[in-house]
């Protein structure tokens, strides 16, 4: 067999390039569906993550008002009680605390006393207006047997405080 001339060499090289090009094109076509599916799946994941991030950031806005407060501890309930329900000494007991983000925790406090119902409203309003606010989560009122308008009261209030 004679050796290929320069021109034949280039013809073979060109034909080889064409075969290579065709092979690459066929490979690209063969993997097209898989590649597109993978990218589509990733795009779906990204959209899901972005939605989660949007929801999460919206929820985190709830943290901002508390971080903006100058006082990071709630007003003591004994102090408020003394101010709005004078003459009654409540039994105040700290209960469980739930951990919260950024070093905060939600502390529950139980207040037990026997007091006129009329004074209770003022106390609860003042507790809700305090910063950080107290929020009434449970209550149990039982009418006093002998005095009208007076009840045995159990209140559970919760407030956020910085640890």
């Amino acid at each position, binding site marked *: *067999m004679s050796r290929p001339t320069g*021109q034949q060499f*280039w*013809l073979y*090289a*060109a*034909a*080889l*390039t*064409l*075969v*290579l*090009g*065709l092979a*690459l*094109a066929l*490979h*690209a076509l063969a993997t097209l569906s898989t*590649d*597109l599916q*993978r*990218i589509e799946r*990733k*795009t779906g*994941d*990204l959209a*899901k*993550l*972005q939605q*989660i*991030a949007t929801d*999460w950031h919206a*929820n985190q806005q*709830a*943290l901002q008002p*508390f971080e903006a407060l100058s006082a990071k501890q709630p007003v003591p309930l004994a102090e408020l009680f003394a101010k709005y329900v004078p003459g009654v000494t409540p039994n105040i007991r700290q209960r469980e605390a*739930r*951990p*919260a*983000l950024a070093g*905060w*925790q*939600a502390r529950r406090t139980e207040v037990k006393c026997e007091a006129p119902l009329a004074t209770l*409203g003022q106390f*609860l*309003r003042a507790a*809700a207006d305090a910063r*950080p*606010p107290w*929020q*009434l*989560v*449970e*209550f*149990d*009122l*039982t*009418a006093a047997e002998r005095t009208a308008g007076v009840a045995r009261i159990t209140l559970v209030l*919760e407030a*956020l405080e910085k640890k």
Partner: protein
Amino acid sequence: MHAAAPEAAPPTPKARVNLRRPEVMDLVAAEVAHHYRSSTVEKLRERGGKLTIGNTTVLLAKEFGFCYGVERAIDLAYAARRSDVETRLAQHRALGLEPVVLQHEGCALWQQALAEIPLMPQALRVVAYVGDARTAMAVGSGQNGGELISLHGIRLGADELAVPGAPATRQWAERVNQLLRALPAAAANEPIQWLWCGAGAELSSRLESALAAGERVHFKTLADPVTFLARALAQSALRGDGAGNLRLGDLTHAMVLAYGERTRRNAALNLLVAGLVLAGLSLGWHAWLARCEARVQSEIVAVAGQLTGAAQVPYGQEVDQVQKALKKQAVELQPFLDAFRPSATRDLAEVLAAARSCRVTLDALSHSDKSLILHGATDDWNRCDPLAARLRALGYTVELSREEAGADELVRFTLKGSRR
């Protein structure tokens, strides 16, 4: 571009020439080897004339090849053609001409007739060119889209055939009839489509009478018969397929060689460009897809890292990891969200106000996370219904139970409310 046979001189006895000269035979040997020798046969001979592949054995005949007489005839034919072509070229060069194509006129006539006149099916075709001093004939059949059978030359042309009463016409007709009788036996009864061309086509009626061919032959004069050969040669040269060109091998014109080289170079270049374009597009497509994927992936990593707070999130598990991490954080976010929910104070105030307006006495009232229980008494059976309606308006599912009472007794009741 010239016909192989220029207008010939009147017939004179030719001097004998030695065609098989050493310088010619070296070239002929190479040409014959190129056409008739087979590398496969050479290899078989090297292996002793036997080749076994699997369960198949190929045997080469002991006396495989041409006998001396055939070999000599082939050599002579090649040498004659070569010598003739060289002589023609020398004649042209002496006139200061370098023909690009030295075309065999018979082949050109046949091809041009095929292009201009449709073939008759199941018929022979004769293309007869009557020049000034000679006649050329191409004979073929209508099979396989036009199959050339033989080419002939007669040293009688229009100059002699036009002379009335001269024996030339009779000699011409005898020679043509002799050629027709030599056609393959299978075609003996097939009709013949006879096409006239050349300067002597105007003598066609006289020549047809001289032939006395009968009804088997259908005569026709080609359009513009005088220029037909010129058209045929020009078209053949323009086609460039080499059919009928006698300037082959080392006799090929430099321009034709350059054209061939340019064509091959262009073909190689086109292949190269097509290959590079395909490869480029494929690689570019892959790169673009990879870039798209990388961009989406980097965004996923960034968002996942931001949400989980981790430096690295396992590949492909970003959504799961984020959901897991946020589930934990969601518990710690809940107290802040709860702080914005309506307080139980609202429910307490509403219940107390409703009890007052319904003139209901409450003995006990308790509220925990999702339930509310009221115990009380009223002087009328129906008075606690508006209270129950009020609780429903606050979103509670209410269950009311009342105890039977006498006419002067208070009706004791229990209201249980639950909320999702």
